[in-house]
């Protein structure tokens, strides 16, 4: 079943659209990564699909319903999102944060939490391993724990679609794998349709079934991960020299940066280097072990 379909989507600001001519579709049980350098429009795309950008044009169907005709309450029943930055000013507990996901289902403001709500909240907390943290305040948690709490909130919304904006940013390798294993489980066992914006190509290639590459707000390439990943494509999108091979022990494609001496010597190197490159180096750490 196709859950999300976008045709010729343009979004951003009225006089300055950030993404253009975006066409994509996502089915239940699919895991799509939107990749591209910083500023290529990944976050804007995720916001646009939730009607959060000041300007939005094109055709988007969410579970066969026109995005423009859905109000925020209806939309909240169809897709849940994990934002890139989340820093509440006030000290809510983990449980309170996750319970807010149930808002769109509660019509009576004084009724409190129903048995059904309680069950969904408990399941979300347990799936993400945040059940033991439920009475803690959000600002007492580590980055990885916070990320899992936000995923728990998205799960408690009980939507067929999940959107995540850079779920691995600010996390170390161990947490990155934890988060992606969890997402993989949700895709496979819960049949969720998942869309992530991700700049870490190795993570995306290892876990996602489909990929889209964005450059300057346009889709450069898209398709099944194993057919799509190609050295030239990555070099074109990120403007860096890379090496792509299959890791013998995991069987997964692996991308590593190729050091070029000219780049390091150039005094204007900083301007030439895409700003995502330092993160790319960290993420390719695995391949240096070989």
């Amino acid at each position, binding site marked *: 079943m196709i859950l999300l379909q976008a045709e010729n989507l343009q979004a951003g600001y009225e006089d300055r659209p950030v993404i253009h001519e975006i066409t994509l579709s996502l089915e239940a049980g699919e895991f799509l990564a939107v990749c591209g350098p910083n500023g290529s429009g990944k976050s804007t795309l995720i916001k646009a699909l939730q009607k959060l950008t*000041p300007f939005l044009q094109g055709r988007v169907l969410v579970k066969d319903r026109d995005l423009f005709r859905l109000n*925020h309450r209806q939309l909240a029943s169809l897709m849940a*999102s994990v*934002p890139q930055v989340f820093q*509440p000013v006030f*000290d*809510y507990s983990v449980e309170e944060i996750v319970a807010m996901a149930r*808002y769109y289902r509660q019509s009576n*403001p004084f009724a409190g939490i129903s048995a059904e709500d309680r069950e969904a909240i408990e399941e979300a907390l347990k799936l993400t391993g945040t059940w033991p943290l439920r009475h803690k305040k959000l600002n007492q948690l580590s980055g990885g724990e916070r990320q899992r709490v936000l995923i728990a909130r998205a799960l408690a919304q009980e939507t067929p679609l999940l959107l995540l904006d850079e779920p691995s940013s600010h996390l170390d390798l161990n947490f990155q794998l934890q988060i992606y294993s969890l997402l993989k489980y949700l895709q496979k066992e819960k049949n969720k349709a998942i869309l992530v914006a991700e700049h870490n190509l190795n993570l995306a290639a290892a876990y996602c079934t489909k990929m889209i590459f964005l450059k300057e707000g346009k889709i450069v390439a898209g398709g099944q991960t194993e057919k799509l990943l190609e050295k030239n494509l990555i070099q074109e999108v990120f403007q860096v020299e890379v090496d792509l091979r299959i890791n013998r022990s995991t069987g997964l494609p692996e991308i590593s940066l190729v050091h070029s001496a000219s780049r390091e010597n150039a005094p204007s190197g900083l301007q030439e280097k895409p700003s995502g490159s330092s993160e790319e180096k960290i993420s390719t750490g695995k391949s240096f072990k070989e």
Partner: protein
Amino acid sequence: MNVRCRHLFFIAVLICLTLAGFFLSLKTGPVKTPSGEIFSLIFHGRSDFSDIILNLRLTRALLAYLTGASLALSGAILQGYFRNPMADPFVLGASSGASLGAVLSLELGLSASLPGLSAQGLMALASSLLLVSLVYMISRRRRFETQESLLLTGIAAGALASALTSFLLFRRADAYEQAVFWLLGSFALADWSQVKLLLLALLPAAAVALFLAREMNLLSLGDETARSLGCPVNSVRKIFLFLATMLAAFSVSVAGIIGFVGLIVPHAVRLISGADHRRLFLSSALAGGFFLLISDLIARTALSPSELPVGVVTAAFGAPFFIYLLNRSRRS
């Protein structure tokens, strides 16, 4: 003890303390009133002192209580609205607008009045509402409407109104004393019509705020998060801004400018009742009422027979207590 229990316990304690506070307020004053007289008034409906107790002390205590509740609720709303614990009821210029109006009415020698509002109060209410509306319209006209632009415009407009007030006061030295008395805030002139007027603003506002408390929880997480969780952000924001402004403007126009309550009470209450606005709105209103009731009692008895401005008392007693609370919560 979990937050919910702590909250309920806090509410219960507040209600007891408030009743005790009212009893003390009815008993205390320049005319000695035995406790028996108050009980006989409550249980038998008559007392030799009924006029003093009902029309002087009760009106004054009630007005102080309602003003405190209104200011604290307004502060709680605006702190959530701006996601900023430093926000208070006067941050959008409600107080500066009111002072300008009050001083203008002295300057112009206006005498029109309504039940519950003197000429100064009426002008204060009008110019307070006018100034906040202006701030809202100016900041909306900017391309990207943000809470930040609203906040900054409010601060700037408040400064402008204060400058005009100072200028008017500077030119009219004879009106100075009267104006300063009003500006510092006092309940000395409380009467029943003022109580009714404030009740008319507070009750509906509190009901709507409690009804929309879940939406405020979502708003306080950020607009985008609130939207993606299903909250109709724009309309909820408008309603809350309206509520907070009405509460601030009405309290200022009946009681003058009493600072500190709207900033400190919601902040302190949050340390006890937690961040959830369903609890916070209720306990802020109750705690704000109690706080100002006691402050006014102190203001009129500490240097009896002369009176302290109640704003002096709220700051003098509230600030140390608040610093103590902050330090305690940081340690735990």
